[in-house]
C-alpha cells in the first residue's frame, strides 16, 4: 500500500540520522540549494547501499530502510 506522508517524513529523518552516524553525512543546515543537499544525501545512500551489497540506486527504497533499521554496532562504517 502507498506509504503515508507522516511515515515518509519519519523515514527520511531516520535515514539522515543513520547517514550522519555511520557515513559521515553532514546536512548543510543553512544551504540555500535544497537540491544540492538531496544530491549529497543520495551520494551517501549510494555509499551505504554499496557497503551492504544492496542495489545502488541512491534512493531510500524498502530494502535500504530495512537494512538501516537492523540492530548494529554504533561505530561508523566509513570515516572521512
Amino acid at each position, binding site marked *: 500500500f502507498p506509504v503515508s506522508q507522516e511515515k515518509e517524513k519519519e523515514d527520511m529523518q531516520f535515514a539522515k540520522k543513520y547517514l550522519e552516524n555511520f557515513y559521515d553525512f553532514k546536512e548543510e543546515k543553512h544551504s540555500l540549494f535544497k537540491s544540492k543537499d538531496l544530491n549529497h544525501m543520495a551520494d551517501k545512500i549510494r555509499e551505504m547501499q554499496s557497503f551492504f551489497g544492496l542495489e545502488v540506486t541512491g534512493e531510500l527504497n524498502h530494502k535500504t530502510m530495512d537494512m538501516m533499521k537492523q540492530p548494529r554496532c554504533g*561505530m561508523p562504517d566509513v570515516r572521512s
Partner: protein
Amino acid sequence: YSTFPLRPTWKKEDVTYRILNYTPDMLQADVDEAIARAFQLWSSVTPLRFTRLYSGQADIMISFAAGFHGDFYSFDGPGGTLAHAYPPGGGLGGDAHFDEDENWTKFTTYNGFNLFLVAAHELGHSLGLGHSNVFGSLMYPVYMATDTRYYQLHQDDIDGIQALYGPPRESPVLPTKALPPQEPTEMIPAGAPTQMSPREDPTEMTPSKPPQRPEDCDPHLTFDAITTLRGETLFFKGSYVWRKSPYFSEIEHDTIFSFWPSLIAGFDAAYEVDNKDRVLFFKDNQYWAVSGYRIDSGFPKPIHYLGFPTSVGKIDAAVHDQNTKRTYFFVGNKYWSFNENTQSMERGYPRKIAADFQGVPHPIDAALQKNGYFYFFHGSNQYEVDMKKKKLIRIMKSNSWFNC
C-alpha cells in the same frame, strides 16, 4: 576488512582489560565468560595475551550504560545501536560500551543479543579493526543471530587482525605422559614432614622468579579448584587457569577455553587420578573426565552417579590421595571418601570435616595433594595437613605457589 585512520594498534602483546559493571540480564559469571571467550577469539589468532584486572586502569575498560554515558555517542534505547568501542589509545581508547537498554543473553535467542558475539565484534574495534563489508564476518556492522557454541572467526577477520598484529606465536603444549621422574630429588620425601625446616617451603618448587602479573600476588587471591595434571599444578578461577610446571619457572596464565573449549568455566572442584591419566572437573551437579585435552565420552554425568545423596547439589572441593587411592569430596562442613579402585563411596560417610581435619575451616574452596601433604584452600589462606597424622602443619597464603 578495514582499520581506523592511521592504523592505531596496541604497541605491546600483553593487553589488560577490566569489567567495570554488569548487566542485570545475565549472571555475572556468564558475563565474565562471554567477555573472556570474546578475547580468546582474538588471542587465538594473534600473539596478543589478555589479562583481566579487577581494579585500577586497564587498557580496555568494559561497561554497560544506557542513553548518554559520558562520551559523544549516546545510546538510543532498545534496538538500533547495541554497543560501540574505541580504537587502541589512551583514555577512552580501547574501551567498549554496551547499551544496557538491550536484552543481553548468554545464548543466541531471538529476543535478545548474544553478549559474546557483540563483545567479540567490539573487541575487534578495541584492537584496531574497523567495519568490514564482508557478509558473515564478525566485523560486519549489523548483528547476526549466530549459533555461538563452536564459533570461529571468518577468514576476513583473521586477515584483518593479523595485518595489525601478525599470527600467534607457537602455543605451549601440555607435556605428554612419557615424562622424566616427576619430582626434583631435593624435594621433601613423602611422609617425613618433621625433616622439613620451617624455612623450607615445599610450595616454592622452582627457583623464585618475579611473577609476570601483579594479580598473581594479590594477597586476597582465591581459587575455585586446584588439581595436578601430568606433573603440573593447575589453579582455576573463573574462566582462567594458572599453570605451574616443575620444568619451567614461569607461571602460565591461560583461559580454560584454550585447553578445553567445550568445558564451562567456573569449576567447583577438580582432581587427578594419576594412574589413569585422568582429571575430573566438577561444576554444579555435573562432572566431566578429561585425559590431557580430550574429554572422555559419555560426560558430563550427574554427580549422584558417584554415590552422593540427592540433597548434595554441588561439590566444594575434591582431592585424590595417590597413596590410599581414596578421593575425598568436601561439601559444606562434611566430607565423603570415595574408593577409586571399587568406584564406590566408602561406608561411614559423610563425616564432619572438623572431626578429622582439626583447624581446617569450611567450606573448602579447593584441595591439593603435593609432596606428601594435603593443602586445603579456604579464601585467601591454605592449610597444610599431614594426612597420616591428620595434623595441621601450618597456614600459608593461597597463592604462595606463585613465587610471590
